[in-house]
Each structure stands twice: as structure tokens, then as C-alpha cells.
């Protein structure tokens, strides 16, 4: 090679040669003996390696895929435990959605298809529950009663236009159905599937169920010409898992060959010799196989990240081989035999090889501190793979090289040498200019870091345009999203106080901008109550709750919301509108904020309060009422009117007036003449009873001591049991009239609110809030009860309610929140360890600092690029910086190590030393940076967008790190002339 330094090696017994310069005589002897052994026993080494590879292949046969996001966190994580608990108690917590897109859902044939699909899915063992338009419950009120039944029965599907139009109206009037089971425009119907849990191989069972669902759907919809206007798509976590599992396999099948091809190309361009291609390739293939074998043997699954380990190893593991082969060729070009060249190369680069591998292992190994299983596994497995690659490089490579190879003709890498000579000249002549330019470029990039988006869409792990991706977008667009968030409520669910709390939670969830479609038992109770008596509110009494509960407790739809048996555990569940990390964070923070401040603990009976406490609680009730109303408006995405305070004030201060008493009298008389009255009374008695109840009415209920006496006096001779029953009925009627008047009064103050006039559902819900406030009870947090002085009083009783957050959204949020600090820790750990290691190695803290400087600049460039390109900071992109340090520092080590050797050899002729270094190690660095950079570019072919971003950014970081090492580091050395470069500093 032109301009190469003279070789200092002589033809001696390779097994006896040491490298005193770098490691002292004794270490040199040991190394010499070791490499001599490898060379003498080269056939044994090759056979042993082949045996190891064969064993690894057997182990790798046991590899399994893992696409379950939940397993990416530790099973001991509280969020994961809560997630699994909900799954066990409620028969499953993974919800898939089958989306049927048609021009119009409200067609008999489409409804029949939905019914058939629903019934078919219910037959599949792994489906715990299937819910669609054709089997969901409907609570409808009529002029004369209530109907609790199916919205559409499979054997009575509407066929006429009026019937279909009526169905459309009923669905659109019910927010539980519209925008949830059918899009409001009537073009998409959803069949929600709750996947069963309990299988030993949960993921395997889920994926098998997914395949059955997809297969059954294809069977039913593949009739030629029959369903040409129907598109069926699959969304939600189970289908997403299925898609990801396919992608993991697809990634490995596509990317590994692609990566190998790129590596071959780059190696040939860089080293211009078949052995330069084959030998490094053998190293990476052997180490990758070893890693896969270990994974299979230890039962570690292949997931989104660990599936990349072989690909990363192909890129990284080749570096050692490249440096080895580069140096080997130098020796060969100087006329050494293959055995001597192999041994001499070994001695020359033993230190940088070990050191660079160590630093890269530190970078990846530092990911082992992560709480996120896949990150930890990825980091540790890659570190192990790198160690394997080092071992193979130090054993197999000298052995193979010693078999004898031809050497490339001198000048084949001349273009690189010329390029490097130019770099050397530039650095020598204008180090400040180079440094200033680099600094300026870094500064510009640094400005971009301010633009980094801290939100990432989890669906980026789906292939853009894939069926699963389109389904997710459709779910977002038309059906409120697919990502469930749940609140587990533990307590007595028949207690109105518990249900009022759940209603509050529903409202608070809906009020969050990124959450919609909340539902719970309390919401269903309110809906039933609305059908029964026109008020969309949970019953005020335990008996009322128990009665409604009895109507639905064994319905399949309820099993999703209430645990089997005595109702002590229920879910308030909702959907996060998208899979953006910021949406998930907003939802989680919003919920936690409320839970931390307002966890209910005490319920106060307002009828038992008097004096200051009563007044204080009423003020609190008014404030609570305003907050609930605001949440209701926010949930409807309508700005809350300023008149809410007036409405709340009107409501809390309202008292029974003459109009109300007149209505009570009328209602009592009407009841007494109805067929259902418990006893017949004379007109005179009816009038007396009407007056008694009108007089006894108050805003907090009927004074039963007065009405009991009045009833007995008005109904002499009537059975006592009937008297008591009648008194209860009349008290109930009286309370209804009082409540109606009170609510009507409050609603009148909001009459000018346009949204209320236009939106009947909002009107219904706001009325419901007032009706719930009409209950003579108030649920308080422990601290509020203490503050208002009612804790421990006769009016207060404890309500042991526990509310905890769960759902897949919680798991993803925890993953993200645990991930970023971990990544930062990994970055810092890697930086510190690398700086310390380099400082010790070169006996100078300055060495450590200077050698990581190009990397620091490369990292800034990386983050700046992310900012300018709006690439979100997520678990994948955050890893890039750590990896860039681990890999990039190799360049600095190789460069510095070689420069010191050249300086030691040529003395004060720094320019020559620098040129020699750039033309030898510099070329290797350039080849390596190109191979790693281009290698990671292969990940751009991955189906998962997360991985594509990771690949692109890592590629950029490595190219920049390589470039900066070749430009900035020599400029720094030329400019600063650090003493650690002097030969005496070398260990």
C-alpha cells in the first residue's frame, strides 16, 4: 500500500512474539502462546467452532415468538399484576374488534351477516364474549313500561325501511351504541371480542384464536359476489399481536439476508479480497448463531427487539473482523507468511479489539438495568453476542488466517488512502477550521433537539398500510379508538355511593381529551333507570340498585363490567382515542390526579346533618355539582356554560313550593285510583292522603312520621301490611315529584344553552347529574370529611371503595415512563464507564474526554435530526444514543491506539504519524463506519416503523461518529497536542 510505514515485524516464530509496547513482556508472552496455540491447532479450532455452531442450531430450533406487549414489562410490575388480575377476574382483558365496513350497516343482509359473524365468534373457544349490534342489550322505555332485551334479535332482523330507520334512530340516540358498536355515519359496524384468559401459553392461545376468528370470517364472507361491498378488518390488541408476530418473522426472514448482502458488498469494497469478505462474515454468523442457540436453550422468546439481535450482530460483529483483516493484509503486503501475519496482527490489535468490544458491550449491557424486559433482554443478548464475536475473532480468525491467504495487490485501497491523506492534510493545516465547522454543525443540530417530540404512536410498530394499521386508523376515526383503559373499583357495588363514584369516574374519563366511550355498571344502571322512570341516574337507594342489578346480573354484557358472584368488583372502562404516548400519558395523569385527590371514603346522609356542618356540606355539594356538570359538558366536547354555577345554586337552594305540593296532591290522587294501588280508598281518604303527603314533602324526602300517622288515619280498616306498602308507594311518588320540580328548576336556568337545546343526549345526561345530586347523600374523600367535620359523626359512614387503574393503556404508559429514565441512565452509565476506562487505559482523564467528544457531537446530531424530522423520542429511538457511544468509541480507540504506535515509531514526525494512522486505521474506521451505517440502513426495510426509525437514526449516528472521529479527533489532537499521545504514556 502506498505510503505505508515500514513493517517493524520480522520473520520470527509467531508463537514467541509479544507486544512489549502495549502490554509488557509477560502479557506479551501469554498472548503469543495463546495465538500460537490457535494457529498450531487451527483445525481443532475450526472443528470445535463447527460443533458449537451445530449445538447452537439445535438450541435455536426451540425459539418461539413473543409479540405480547404486556410481557415486555416484568411480570412483577404492579401494573402488569393489576392487568393480569383484571383478566382473571373478568374472564379476559384483551379486546379485539372485527370491523365490518359497508355502504350502510342498516340493511337486512348486513345485519344478518353481523349476527352470523357474532354467533360464529361466540362458538370459538378462545372468545369469552362477542358483542355486536345484534346481541347487545337495550333498555328502552315506552309509554307504559320498560323493555329489557336485545337491540336486534338474530331471528327477527328488521327488514322494512321503517323498521330499519327506527333501528338507526334508536342506535344513534344511545351513546353506548353509536360510535361504539356502529359508527355514527352507519358505515362501520364493530363486533367486539373479549379474548379468554387462563391458557398456559397465553400468547399461543390468543394467536390461535385470532387465526380462528380470521378463518371463520373468511369462510363466511368469501362467497363470490355476495359480499363484494363488504370489507372486514381486525383491530385491537390480539390482532395487533398477531400482526406483530408475523412481522417479527418477516423481519428476520427479510432483513438477515439483506444485511448479509450489504455486509458482503461493503466488505468487498473496503478490503478488496474474498477472505476479507468471508472471514468477518464467518465471525458474525457464528456469533449470531450462538446467541440464537442460547436464546432457544434458555427459553428466551424472540420479540420485536431480540429479533434484531442477529441483525445488529451482523453489523457490529464484523467490525473486529474488519480491523483484524485490514491489519492482516498490511502484514501480508509487507511479505510476511500467513501464520506470521496472523500472529502479528493478533498482537497488534489485541488491545483495541478487547477494549472496543468491552466498550460496546458496556453500552448494550447498560440496557440490562432497564425494567422493560425486551430492552433488558436485547441489551444483554447483544452484549453476549459481541463477546462471542470477540472470542471468535481472537480464536477462529487467526486460525483461519493461518491457513494461508493471498493478499490484495497494493494500491487496491488507494482511493481510501488518498482520501485519508487529504484528511490528514486538512487536519494538519486547519485544525481550528475543522473544529469550528464541526462545532457549528453540532450547534445547529443542537437547536433541533428543542424540537424533539416526546410522543410516539405505538401503532408505528405496525406496517403502514397493513390491514391492522388501517383497522386501527378506522377505529380511531369512527369508533373512539381501540386502546382500553380501565379502573378497577372494589367495594359494594350495590351501594348507591359506590355507583355514584363510578358515575363520577365515567364522567371524569370522558372529560379527558384523549378518552371516550366510558362505561360501567353505574352507566348501565343509569340507562336502565332512564328507561324505567325517565331519569338517567343511578338509583338513590340500595334496594333500587339491587332491583336493577337483578334484571341484568346474568347477562353476558355485564360479565365484562362486573366480576362474577356478589357484585364487589367492577370495571369502569373507556378507550384512549389513539395509541400516541402523550394521549396515553394525558389519560393516565388525568385519572391519577383525580384518584389521588378524590378517592371516596365517606358517605354522608344529609338528612342527619344540621347546623354548620349541613351548610358546609351543602356548599361542597354545590361545588361538586358544578364539577360534575363541567365534566359532563367536557365529555360531550362542548364548552361548559358560565351559567352552571347559577344552576347549581338554584338546585341546592331549591325548596318545596306550592306548585310542587299541588303536583304531589295530583300524583297521589292519580295513584290511588290506579289498578296497582295496594288498597282501595274512598275519595275523601284519597284527598286526605294527598294533602298529608304534600305537607310532609321536603327537599330531602318525606317526613315518614307524619305520613305513617296520616295513612293510618285515612285508611281505617285496611290491612296494616297494605297500609305500610301504600305509604311507601306514596312517599316514593312524592319524592319523584319533588325531584322532578327541583331538577326542572335547575334545568330552566340552563334553558339558554344552545348545546343543551340541540343535543338530547347531553340534555339527558345533565338532567341525570341533577338527579344524582338530588340523592340525600354526599360522597366525600377522607380529607374532605375531616375538613368539613363530619368524619366519625352519626351522619357519616365509611364506604370502603378502592379504585385502581389498569388496562393496556396503563401497561403501555408504565413501559414508556420506565423506559426513558432507564435510557438516560444507560446513556450516562455508558458515558461514565467509557470515559473512565479510556482515562485509565491512556493514563489521562483528558484522553477519555477527548475520545468521547466526537461521539457527543454525533449524539447531538442524532437528537437534532430527530427534532428536525419530528421523529418522536420513544423506547427505540432513545436507544440510539447509547448504542452510538458503545460503537462509536471503537473508532476513537482504534485511531488513538494506532496514532500512539505511529508516534512511537516515527517520533516527532507527527504529520507522518497522523497520515499513516489515517491511511491504515482510518481506512478501517471508514470501512467499518460505512458497513455499520449502511448495515443499519437495512432496517429501513423493516415492516415496523419503530424499527425503521431506529435503523435510520443508528445509521446516521454511526456515519457521523465515524466521520467526526476521522476529522474532529485528529484536529483536537493536532490542536491540543495532548501528552497522553506520547509513547511513554502507553500501557
Amino acid at each position, binding site marked *: 500500500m502506498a505510503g505505508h510505514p515500514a513493517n517493524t515485524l520480522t520473520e520470527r516464530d509467531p508463537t514467541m512474539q509479544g507486544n512489549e509496547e502495549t502490554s509488557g513482556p509477560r502479557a506479551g508472552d501469554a498472548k503469543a502462546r495463546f495465538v500460537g496455540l490457535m494457529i498450531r491447532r487451527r483445525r481443532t479450532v475450526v472443528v470445535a467452532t463447527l460443533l458449537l455452531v451445530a449445538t447452537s442450531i439445535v438450541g435455536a430450533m426451540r425459539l418461539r415468538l413473543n409479540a405480547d406487549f404486556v410481557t415486555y414489562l416484568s411480570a412483577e410490575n404492579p401494573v402488569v399484576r393489576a392487568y393480569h388480575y383484571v383478566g382473571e377476574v373478568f374472564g379476559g382483558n384483551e379486546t379485539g374488534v372485527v370491523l365490518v365496513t359497508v355502504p350502510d350497516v342498516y340493511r337486512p343482509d348486513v345485519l344478518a351477516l353481523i349476527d352470523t359473524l357474532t354467533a360464529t365468534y361466540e362458538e370459538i373457544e378462545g372468545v369469552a364474549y362477542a358483542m355486536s349490534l345484534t346481541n347487545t342489550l337495550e333498555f328502552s322505555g315506552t309509554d307504559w313500561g320498560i323493555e329489557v332485551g336485545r337491540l336486534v334479535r338474530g331471528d327477527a332482523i328488521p327488514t322494512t325501511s321503517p323498521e330499519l330507520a327506527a333501528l338507526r334512530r334508536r342506535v344513534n340516540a344511545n351513546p353506548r351504541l353509536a360510535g361504539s358498536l356502529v359508527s355514527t355515519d352507519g358505515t362501520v359496524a364493530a363486533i367486539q371480542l373479549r379474548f379468554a384468559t387462563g391458557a398456559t401459553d397465553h400468547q399461543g392461545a390468543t394467536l390461535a384464536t385470532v387465526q380462528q376468528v380470521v378463518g371463520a370470517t373468511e369462510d363466511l364472507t368469501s362467497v363470490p359476489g355476495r359480499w363484494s361491498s363488504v370489507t372486514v378488518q381486525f383491530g385491537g390488541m390480539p390482532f395487533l399481536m398477531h400482526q406483530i408476530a408475523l412481522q417479527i418473522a418477516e423481519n428476520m426472514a427479510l432483513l438477515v439476508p439483506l444485511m448479509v448482502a450489504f455486509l458482503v458488498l461493503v466488505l468487498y469494497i473496503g478490503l478488496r479480497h474474498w477472505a476479507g469478505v468471508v472471514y468477518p462474515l464467518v465471525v458474525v454468523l457464528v456469533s449470531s448463531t450462538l446467541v440464537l442457540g442460547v436464546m432457544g436453550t434458555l427459553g428466551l422468546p424472540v420479540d420485536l427487539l431480540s429479533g434484531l439481535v442477529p441483525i445488529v450482530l451482523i453489523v457490529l460483529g464484523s467490525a473486529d473482523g474488519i480491523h483484524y483483516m485490514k491489519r492482516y493484509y498490511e502484514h501480508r503486503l509487507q511479505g510476511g507468511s500467513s501464520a506470521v501475519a496472523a500472529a502479528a496482527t493478533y498482537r497488534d490489535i489485541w488491545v483495541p479489539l478487547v477494549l472496543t468490544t468491552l466498550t460496546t458491550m458496556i453500552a448494550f449491557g447498560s440496557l440490562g438495568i432497564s425494567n422493560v424486559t425486551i430492552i433488558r433482554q436485547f441489551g444483554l443478548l447483544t452484549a453476549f453476542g459481541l463477546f462471542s464475536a470477540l472470542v471468535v475473532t481472537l480464536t477462529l480468525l487467526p486460525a483461519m488466517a493461518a491457513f494461508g491467504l493471498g493478499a490484495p495487490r497494493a494500491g487496491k485501497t488507494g482511493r481510501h488512502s488518498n482520501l485519508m491523506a487529504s484528511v490528514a492534510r486538512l487536519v494538519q493545516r486547519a485544525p481550528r477550521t475543522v473544529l469550528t465547522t464541526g462545532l457549528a454543525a453540532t450547534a445547529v443540530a443542537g437547536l433541533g433537539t428543542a424540537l424533539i417530540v416526546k410522543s410516539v404512536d405505538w401503532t408505528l410498530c405496525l406496517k403502514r398500510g397493513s390491514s391492522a394499521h388501517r383497522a386501527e386508523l378506522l377505529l380511531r376515526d369512527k369508533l373512539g379508538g381501540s386502546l382500553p383503559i380501565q379502573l378497577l373499583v372494589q367495594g359494594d357495588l350495590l351501594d348507591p355511593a359506590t355507583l355514584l363514584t363510578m358515575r363520577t369516574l365515567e364522567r371524569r374519563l370522558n372529560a379527558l381529551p384523549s378518552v371516550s366511550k366510558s362505561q360501567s355498571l353505574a352507566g348501565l344502571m343509569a340507562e336502565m333507570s332512564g328507561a324505567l322512570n325517565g331519569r338517567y341516574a343511578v338509583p338513590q337507594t340500595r334496594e333500587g340498585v339491587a332491583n336493577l342489578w337483578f334484571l341484568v346480573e*346474568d347477562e353476558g354484557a355485564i360479565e365484562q363490567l362486573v366480576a362474577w358472584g356478589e357484585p364487589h368488583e367492577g370495571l369502569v372502562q373507556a378507550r384512549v382515542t389513539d395509541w400516541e404516548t402523550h394521549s396515553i400519558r394525558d389519560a393516565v395523569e388525568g385519572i391519577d390526579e383525580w384518584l389521588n385527590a378524590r378517592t371516596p371514603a365517606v358517605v354522608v346522609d344529609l338528612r342527619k346533618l344540621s347546623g354548620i356542618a349541613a351548610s358546609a356540606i351543602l356548599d361542597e355539594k354545590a361545588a361538586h355539582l358544578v364539577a360534575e356538570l363541567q365534566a359532563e359538558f367536557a365529555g360531550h366536547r362542548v364548552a361548559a356554560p358560565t351559567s352552571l354555577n347559577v344552576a347549581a345554586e338554584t338546585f341546592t337552594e331549591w325548596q318545596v313550593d306550592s306548585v310542587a305540593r299541588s303536583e304531589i296532591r295530583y300524583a297521589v290522587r292519580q295513584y290511588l285510583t290506579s289498578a296497582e294501588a295496594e288498597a282501595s280508598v274512598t275519595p275523601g281518604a284519597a284527598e286526605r292522603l294527598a294533602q298529608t303527603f304534600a305537607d310532609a314533602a321536603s327537599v330531602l324526602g318525606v317526613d315518614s312520621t307524619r305520613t305513617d300517622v296520616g295513612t293510618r288515619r285515612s285508611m281505617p280498616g285496611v290491612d296494616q301490611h297494605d297500609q305500610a306498602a301504600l305509604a311507601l308507594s306514596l312517599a316514593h311518588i312524592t319524592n319523584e315529584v319533588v325531584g322532578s320540580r327541583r331538577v326542572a328548576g335547575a334545568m330552566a336556568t340552563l334553558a339558554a344553552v344552545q348545546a343543551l337545546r340541540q343535543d338530547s343526549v347531553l340534555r339527558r345526561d345533565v338532567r341525570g347529574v341533577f338527579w344524582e345530586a338530588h340523592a340525600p347523600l354526599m360522597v366525600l374523600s377522607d380529607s374532605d370529611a375531616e375538613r368539613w367535620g363530619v368524619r366519625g359523626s352519626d351522619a357519616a359512614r365509611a364506604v370502603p371503595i378502592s379504585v385502581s387503574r389498569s388496562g393496556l393503556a396503563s401497561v403501555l404508559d408504565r413501559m414508556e415512563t420506565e423506559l426513558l429514565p432507564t435510557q438516560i441512565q444507560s446513556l450516562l452509565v455508558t458515558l461514565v464507564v467509557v470515559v473512565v476506562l479510556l482515562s485509565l487505559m491512556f493514563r489521562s482523564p483528558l484522553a477519555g474526554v477527548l475520545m468521547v467528544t466526537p461521539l457527543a457531537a454525533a449524539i447531538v446530531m442524532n437528537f437534532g435530526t430527530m427534532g428536525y424530522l419530528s421523529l418522536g423520542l420513544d423506547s427505540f429511538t432513545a436507544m440510539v444514543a447509547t448504542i452510538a457511544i458503545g460503537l462509536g468509541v471503537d473508532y476513537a480507540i482504534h485511531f488513538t491506539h494506532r496514532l500512539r504506535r505511529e508516534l512511537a515509531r516515527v517520533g516527532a514526525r507527527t504529520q507522518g504519524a497522523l497520515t499513516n494512522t489515517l491511511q491504515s486505521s482510518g481506512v478501517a474506521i471508514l470501512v467499518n463506519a460505512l458497513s455499520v451505517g449502511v448495515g443499519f440502513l437495512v432496517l429501513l426495510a423493516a415492516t415496523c416503523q419503530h424499527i425503521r426509525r431506529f435503523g435510520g437514526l443508528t445509521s446516521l449516528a454511526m456515519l457521523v461518529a465515524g466521520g467526526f472521529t476521522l476529522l474532529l479527533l485528529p484536529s483536537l489532537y493536532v490542536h491540543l497536542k495532548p501528552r497522553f499521545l506520547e509513547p511513554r504514556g502507553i500501557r
Partner: protein
Amino acid sequence: MRTQAIRIVAGAVFAALSAGPARAQDAAWVLERVDSTLTAPKDIVATQRVVLIDADGRQKERTLRVYQQGLDRRLAKFVTPAAVRGVGFLRLADDQMYLYLPAFRRVRRIASSIKHEDFMGTDLSYEDLSRTHFGNDYRAVGMTSAEQVHTLTLEARPDADVSYGKIVMRVLPERWVIVDMQLFARDGRLLKTIAASDIRQVGEYWMAHRLEVRTVRDGHRTVLEYEDLQVDTGLSDDFFSQRQLKRSS
């Protein structure tokens, strides 16, 4: 809610028997005997224990007091669990159904369109509970006889508003009590099975005191057991009223 339960109960459970001639009968004749048996008692009063058993074997238990008169009138009041004591259900002629929820102190009419729905978590629909005369909605299309049991195949009449397209029932000859039934959807799928047992004589009628209903799809079962079963007690027509629905205990 389970309107069907009452029908099958009335049909199979309260089956009383009028002895028939021991000769080869055709299917229609046998169905007529079965229907006659079902409608033989003038009225029935009983305590009904209902056990709901899901596919995992988990159980819930309820107790009702039931009153029935003729073909159309039935009143049932829940006794246990305590939380729902007093919840009542009344069925009158022409599919008029009423529900009483004591907490709301009001009787509410239930739409007849839900007669195909399950009744209160049982495996019986309102329709099952209400049926006392198969011949109105079904015609017998075949019969085989073996080992002292007639196996009767019924098909729904084209205009009948019923859930089942086909019913296969096994009937004890001479007593004309149904011992079991298989209920099929119109597309031929087996939906439910009903097995009657503990057949004893009450007064002059033979009746099954235990029914087990199983839904094929989810493996859910309902066991109905009758205690304190009385017949021909002389219930008045007025008893089956909204007022009584609220009052009776």
C-alpha cells in the same frame, strides 16, 4: 328475563297425566295428549328453587313463589336472595307481561317482543316459561317409540312467533309426561336441552319436580326444583292482578 322458563315449567313440570289408550297413536294424537296433560291442573301453587350453574360450575341460587292458573295466568314473586325479595312477574292472557320492582314501587309492563329473551339469568326464555300448549305453535311431524318412550318431533308452524324451529321431545306413554326435550334453532342448531326428573304424582296429576335446562352454546345450566307443590287450590281470577303483584308475598 325469562319468560320461557314459565312455559317449559308449565309444559313439562306441571305435566299431569290422563291415561291414554294403549294402542298405536299417531304423533298428533300424542302431542294432543301431552298438551292436555300440561293444561290439566286448574291451578298450581309452588315454591320454586332455581339454581343457575355456569360452565365453570359456579352457582347462584334463587327462590320464587309461583302461582299459575289455566293456560295464561302466572304470577311469580322472588323470595330470595334478600336483596330482590318482592320482585314480581305477572303474565296474563295475550302475552301481557308485567314486572314489579319494589324499590320503584311501580308495576311496569314488559314488551311482548322480549319473550324470546332469557328470564332472569336462567336458561329459560319468557317464551319457555309461558308455553303450556305446544299444539298452538308446532305440529307433530314424526314419532318413534321404543323402551316405553315415545320420541316426538315437532316443527314450528310457518306463522308461529317462536324461537325454536324444531323440538324433539321424549314422552312417557300413558302418563304423557315429557321426560326430556331438545330445542333446535330454525337453522337446525341445537340450542338447549331440557331434562325432567323426580316425576311424582300430585293429586291426580303426574308432575316432574325437577328440571335441568342446558344451553348448548355456553354450557350454562339452570336447575329448577319444586317444593310444596299444590294443585287445584282454588285461586281466584282476581289474584292475577297488578295489585296482587305488588301485594303478594
